[in-house]
């Protein structure tokens, strides 16, 4: 290697190593290999099982969480890359014992059947309204297309999103 190269960058792994994750406002030190996805860290290590593993290849959206306030797919995110960032899951969406308006709207509108995709749908839907792409049903469908519902509860999901949009003035 060139002697003028910058100081060597520390390389970690492949064995387990301490990884500091901030999830729902709480800091956790986990022993993780670098290959562990954020989804597996949440579900298997932190026992936050609200985020679901559907496809594990970025197709279905069931694992949608927020990193630094933006919706991402936890299955394609390596946990170690989230050090120093804020992770929010469905468990952190509202204070304990309360429901976020989007959660309440999903209940009111019966916006799910089996429920497997629901956490991802809700985490995506809240951001959809912040992003301002819920003007009509076509726009909602387009910007929610990364969240698949095998039960095809889409009409009710859109209705729930419309309710929150109309109540909040977002979207």
């Amino acid at each position: 290697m060139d002697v003028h190269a910058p100081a060597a960058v520390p390389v970690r792994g492949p064995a387990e190593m301490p990884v500091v994750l901030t999830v729902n406002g709480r800091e956790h030190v986990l022993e993780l290999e670098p290959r562990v996805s954020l989804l597996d860290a949440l579900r298997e290590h932190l026992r936050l099982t609200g985020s679901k593993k559907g496809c594990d290849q970025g197709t279905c959206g069931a694992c949608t969480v927020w990193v630094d306030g933006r919706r991402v797919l936890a299955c394609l995110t390596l946990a170690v890359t989230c050090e120093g960032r804020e992770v929010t899951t469905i468990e952190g969406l509202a204070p304990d014992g309360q429901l976020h308006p989007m959660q309440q709207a999903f209940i009111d509108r019966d916006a799910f059947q089996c429920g497997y995709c629901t956490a991802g749908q809700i985490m995506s839907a809240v951001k959809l309204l912040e992003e301002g792409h819920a003007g009509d049903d076509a726009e909602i469908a387009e910007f929610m297309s990364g969240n698949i519902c095998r039960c095809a509860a889409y009409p009710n999901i859109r209705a729930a999103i419309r309710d929150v949009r109309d109540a909040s003035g977002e979207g």
Partner: protein
Amino acid sequence: MRPLRYARVTDVEGAVATVAADPDSAFLAGGTTEVDLIRLGVARPSTLVDINALPLADVDDLGAGLRIGALARMSDVARDPRVVARYPAVAEALLLGASEQLRTMASIGGNLCQRTRCPYFRDDVSPCNKREPGSGCAALDGISRGHAILGTSEHCIATHPSDLAVPLVAFDAIVHTVGPAGTRMIPIDDFYLAPGTTPEVEHPLAHGELIVAVELPPLPLAQGSLYLKYRDRQSYEFALVSVAAAVAVEDGVVSAARLALGGVGTVPWRARLAEQHLLGAPATPERFAAAAAAELAAATPRPDNAFKVALARRAIVRGLTRAVEGGRS
């Protein structure tokens, strides 16, 4: 998933030096392709060098042109008012690709380097010259509905999947890199390599060479540009055929045209033959169809994807027609 080592870098020089020093390492940006392919066993780096902390996420105004940082995210670039105003086809292509979650993660540099969706490449089992050079091509006699009809070879017919790259080739974008040998500016025409006899070589980047920005040169014509995408479902799917088009018309005659195709080429396909046919021609659907036919004369369809020839011809005519209507003519 195979074990991985991990390093996080904070400056471009450190990123380049770290990857250049280890032939089994790779840059990690948004990870939407990289992590997926590692999990499938198709990509096999032993070390990932996380470049997300590098200061490469801005879109800089160059006066008339734009310099898009390689770590700018698809979702942000799609909404940048300067991109929307000056290169609407770029914004449209970005928003018609992937899903919002993936667009939030995926970087511009990574988008340029994304790998084909050919199922034989991705299954890690079938013969695939792109994945295992010399092993053959299962797509040639396999299911080839999504495969390329332009730029193919007997070694590979995999389609390049990027939407973004289609308007970028139409607008002569320039890829800026920093590598072990210094900095380079690569015209995007030279960035994408047709498969030929070496389908495993997709671009001219050296190991450790990092894309730091994509430059969109000044092109007033692009203000009236558009991107059309046709696919098996309405959203969240790769293109069967897509078109980036920009046309200027004076006195009913085409005075300037840019045209590129996605979903049909082994590389994002600049339709230069069609552009030549358009220049000086009446801006009519008949002449647009003739230009499309000229471009598609070299097509090498297979039974499964022969429909792409007609679909591409129609998409070109529609794209040019709408570009004339919406563009500054």
